[in-house]
């Protein structure tokens, strides 16, 4: 039986329309952008609060910094303790038009040795893990210099 693809968090990204995008919200009164999405009230203290409309974030940004996780993270990160731990890189990415930094895992196979601060990366669909019924989907950052 095919696994059902489910977002690890609902409403943070979309694969519909013109490709994969992170989804935030934008205040209709002051144009502040929020990711993770803010759906209750604008958090700009100088804003009376407008409608918070869903908005896709920029596809591309530049590496603000990066690191990796050489040891298995604890729960609630889900891993199979039977399998050897495979370190992955984490990339904090500066989005120019939103003027914000968004953290994410790097695509599998990209290590810290492949990264530099300021390098251009793009957001791509990724798989966080799979269990019997479900493929849990997430976002990954991938250097634009790396082939598809």
């Amino acid at each position: 039986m095919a696994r059902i693809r489910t977002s690890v968090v609902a409403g943070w990204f979309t694969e519909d329309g013109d490709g994969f995008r992170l989804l935030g919200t934008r205040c209709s009164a002051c144009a502040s952008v929020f990711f993770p999405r803010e759906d209750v009230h604008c958090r700009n203290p100088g804003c009376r609060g407008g409608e918070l409309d869903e908005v896709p974030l920029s596809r591309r940004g530049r590496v603000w910094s990066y690191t990796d996780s050489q040891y298995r993270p604890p729960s609630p990160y889900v891993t199979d303790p039977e399998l050897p731990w495979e370190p992955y890189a984490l990339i904090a990415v500066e989005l120019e038009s939103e003027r914000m930094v968004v953290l994410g895992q790097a695509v599998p196979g990209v290590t810290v040795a492949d990264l530099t601060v300021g390098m251009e990366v793009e957001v791509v669909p990724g798989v966080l893990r799979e269990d019997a019924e479900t493929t849990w989907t997430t976002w990954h950052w991938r250097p634009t210099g790396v082939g598809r």
Partner: protein
Amino acid sequence: MTAEVAVLGVGMHPWGKWGRGFTEYGSAAARAALADAGVDWRDVDSVVGADTVRGGYPGYVAGATFAKALGWQGARVTSVYAACASGAQAIAAARAQILAGLAEVVLVVGADSAPKGFFRPAGGDRADDPDWLRFRVLGATNPTYFGLYARRRMAVLGDTLEDFARVKVKNAALGALNPNARYRKRVTAEEVAASAVVADPLRLLDICATSDGGAALVLTGMEFARRHGVAQPVRIRAVSTTTPRYPTTVLDLPDIATDSAAAVEPADETFRASIVRGAYEEAGVGPEDLSLAEVYDLSTALELQWYEDLGLCGEGEAAKLLREGATALGGRIPVNTSGGLASFGEAVPAQAIAQVCELTWQLRGDAGDRQVAGARVGVTANQGLFGHGSSVIAVR
């Protein structure tokens, strides 16, 4: 300038991995602080506990837990939680009670019993909890955030791995002199370089451990101290417990993203710098007045960051300050004479209180082999998860 409160007594239970309950460490520290102050527990008007999330319900109501362990005597009780800044919030609550005339003698206690390995969020599925989400979605442990800051400093300011190792070498040498420290062995730069990478570029010996420990203070009004026969007590002159200002520009624990600066121009100074500025303004002192500083070296690289946030040097000059020996014992402005988190490991609710214990011993001239000659003004600096500033200035 705000009115002052006296630090009449300080006490600690040594840091370690003792495997016992937090109540025991906190009570031992409290008894030591009361003995140091020469104050009977039954004469304490108010007890303020810095909470631990690891002790179950007794940890969430630590003030009452310590009061019961010391023997119920009817004191006013307060319990506070602000992650790593819990201790500073406990001190702030105690000071406010004294300055408002609600209490004259206040006991402040924090203690923790830490688990093995990485800190992790409390159990359960909580998709509305940023701390839970960063683990669930990214596996982003605390050291990965430390790794991001360290790499950013290397790329933007030119810090090197050798600079980071020098922080550990300095702090381990000081911790070797401190009977309350968990790690009391000197460390070489070669040993740092040979330890395993945890979160690139940081290695095991760049990152602070998690520890058991307890720390306590007896704070009183100035008039009480005089009546008690202490003419020149160490005084707390400022407690800064500020929050960030929108929009934040540094990716802080436990967030997955910063605020967006698309609509509002960020402040010129970072959150960390604003915490310390708040303390300087309240105390009416500046970095040039400091005799010593205790800063939160969760990682070696973060200690360097604090030098700049404290104004001990300009941006990007921290590694130079360290290399010149200015922040070692005997230097112009010794930092982490206690040995810092590098030598203690973090016992979360006790740590900001332990920082004030070290300032007090130094300002009294009771710091033994770690003594900073002629210490008059000391500052602590710390930042708690979720936006809790913490900085205390003590003088004598």
